[in-house]
């Protein structure tokens, strides 16, 4: 196990310019330095009968490399402290040193299970900076591919959710569904996971025959397949009983925690960027925003299943309303937007994914802020967990559906 708490550092004897770090072999939950903040001091002070338990960063249920320090009393979690940064690549800084076209492909690996939703706000923000009109066919293709990926992402969520609770079957089923969609998008975009398909002013390449035939094939059985997947878990009494009432969050708290997406809608707030701040061609499409009032893990899980049905509706409409025309606006290869600021947000499967771009008139973004919903959701684990069992940490975390690639940026 590699050390993540930094060890003592000293200069190398061979070359004094090289600083060596001593290996710390054991993972100590308590950091080897005095507390830096009020909250850290409070957390790392043990009460009566309490102890620390270190979970991760290589724990299979943390959906990536996340480390969580749990403060437990018996088997009950009294507090927890997520430790991030194991996957930090500094994407924002990299984007500042790339030009506008290059910046987009840095964004794909952020939410690696739904990577089109990271490109989308970026191209939207840059289009706003450049005042580009996107062809309508391109907008429809974006919506079509985006909603397909939403279905894939929610399918994978369902599998992970069950896996974290100890059920092994659903993940195999949901990977079948996801794989079909991903292969389909692969024939459209040329890549299976990190698509890099959206371009400033449109998309890279029109719909092709292979994609359309795969899509048509899939659409005929998508609904039945979804129902079949749903039946795996929704009628499982152990699953439902365990999820009900777990990690409950009410409406006001969800707003205060800046939650978005399915997690917010499961708490009863009908906020969906596609409706509350419409973008692309969503105003022309007919779909519902499902909400639930309970705000617990089961509600978050069921809400995502409802969303899949709405996504299938949207895909169907896209196919029927798809206009003809170009798929990308004519733009110079070297883009120099006028100095300005723009903010664009889309509804990703996890919530509001937003990019705030600042242009200073050169060909590189001056600043590119990436707002990732997983990052915001992960901090509410600390609010939802106290009072629950250790084993439920994974259930609560999985129901919030964070993607560590996006959390750590």
């Amino acid at each position, binding site marked *: 196990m590699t050390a993540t708490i930094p060890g003592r550092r000293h200069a190398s004897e061979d070359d004094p310019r090289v600083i060596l770090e001593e290996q710390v072999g054991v993972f100590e939950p308590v950091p080897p330095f005095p507390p830096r903040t009020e909250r850290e001091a409070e957390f790392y002070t043990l009460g009566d009968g309490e102890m620390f338990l270190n979970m991760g960063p290589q724990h299979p249920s943390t959906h990536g490399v996340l480390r969580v320090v749990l403060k437990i009393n018996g088997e009950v979690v009294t507090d927890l402290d997520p430790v*991030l940064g194991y996957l930090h690549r500094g994407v924002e800084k990299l984007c500042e040193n790339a030009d506008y076209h290059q910046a987009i492909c840095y964004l794909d690996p952020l939410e690696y299970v739904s990577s089109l939703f990271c490109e989308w706000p970026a191209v939207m923000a840059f289009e706003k900076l450049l005042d580009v009109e996107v062809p309508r066919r391109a907008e429809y293709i974006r919506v079509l591919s985006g909603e397909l990926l939403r279905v894939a992402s929610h399918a994978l969520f369902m599998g992970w959710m069950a896996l974290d609770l100890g059920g092994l079957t659903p993940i195999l089923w949901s990977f079948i569904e996801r794989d079909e969609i991903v292969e389909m998008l692969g024939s459209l975009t040329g890549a299976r996971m990190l698509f890099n398909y959206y371009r400033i002013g449109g998309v890279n390449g029109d719909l092709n025959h292979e994609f359309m035939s795969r899509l048509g094939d899939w659409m005929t059985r998508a609904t039945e397949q979804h129902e079949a997947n749903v039946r795996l878990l929704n009628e499982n009494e152990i699953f439902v009983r365990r999820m009900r009432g777990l990690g409950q969050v009410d409406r006001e708290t969800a707003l205060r925690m*800046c939650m978005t997406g399915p997690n917010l809608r499961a708490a009863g707030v009908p906020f969906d960027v596609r409706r509350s*701040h419409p973008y692309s061609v969503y105003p022309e499409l007919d779909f519902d925003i499902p909400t639930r009032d309970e705000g617990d893990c089961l509600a978050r899980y069921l809400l995502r299943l409802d969303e899949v049905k709405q996504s299938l509706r949207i895909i169907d409409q896209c196919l029927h309303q798809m206009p003809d025309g170009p798929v990308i606006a004519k733009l110079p290869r070297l883009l120099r937007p006028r100095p300005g*600021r723009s*903010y664009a947000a889309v509804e990703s499967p996890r919530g509001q994914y*937003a990019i705030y771009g600042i242009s200073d008139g050169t060909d590189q973004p001056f600043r590119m802020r990436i707002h990732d919903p997983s990052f915001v959701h992960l901090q509410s684990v600390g609010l939802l967990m106290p009072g629950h069992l250790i084993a439920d940490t994974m259930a609560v975390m999985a129901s919030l559906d964070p993607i560590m690639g996006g959390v750590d940026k």
Partner: protein
Amino acid sequence: MDRALRRRIEARFGEVLTGPVRQRHDETELRLAPGDVTTVMRALHDEPDLRFRFLADLCGVDTGLVMQVVYHLWSDSTPDWLRVIADGLPRDDPRVPSVTFLWKGAEWMEREAYDMFGITFEGNRDLRRIYMPPDYTSFPLRKDFYLADDAARSPGAGVRHMERTHAPRNATKTSLLRHAKGA
């Protein structure tokens, strides 16, 4: 663009704004001094004709001259995103009041801004580094932090790849020489 929102904001916050209310596309932007953040955000959040209940984003910006903290808000009372810019934070000691009293979820976003820019959010209970290791001393997203990668030492350093006068295959002996000397 929501002209009515602009009028409402100008009428309500006219005396604390440090610049004109700007609008472009679906965004409305207002600028204020860091000292006014608490009162203005509370008013935006609570007042029934504004109702900005939803903090969409919080981030730091280093303009090279000053630091800024930028908030994006959403309300059902307007079709615009509202951008609030706390402007003119000195680069050597940027300080701004925290908004965690309204949105607890801003805590990590403020931690991130602290980690990346060194902006101190007064009132945030947990202002420690979030991405970088605890013993890290610099602030990576500041404009005076250069990426120490291989490209910085390569002959092409400082040359934007798209602005090169010759594609590599057309490069003449002279241009290769120029690159080799690092000029």
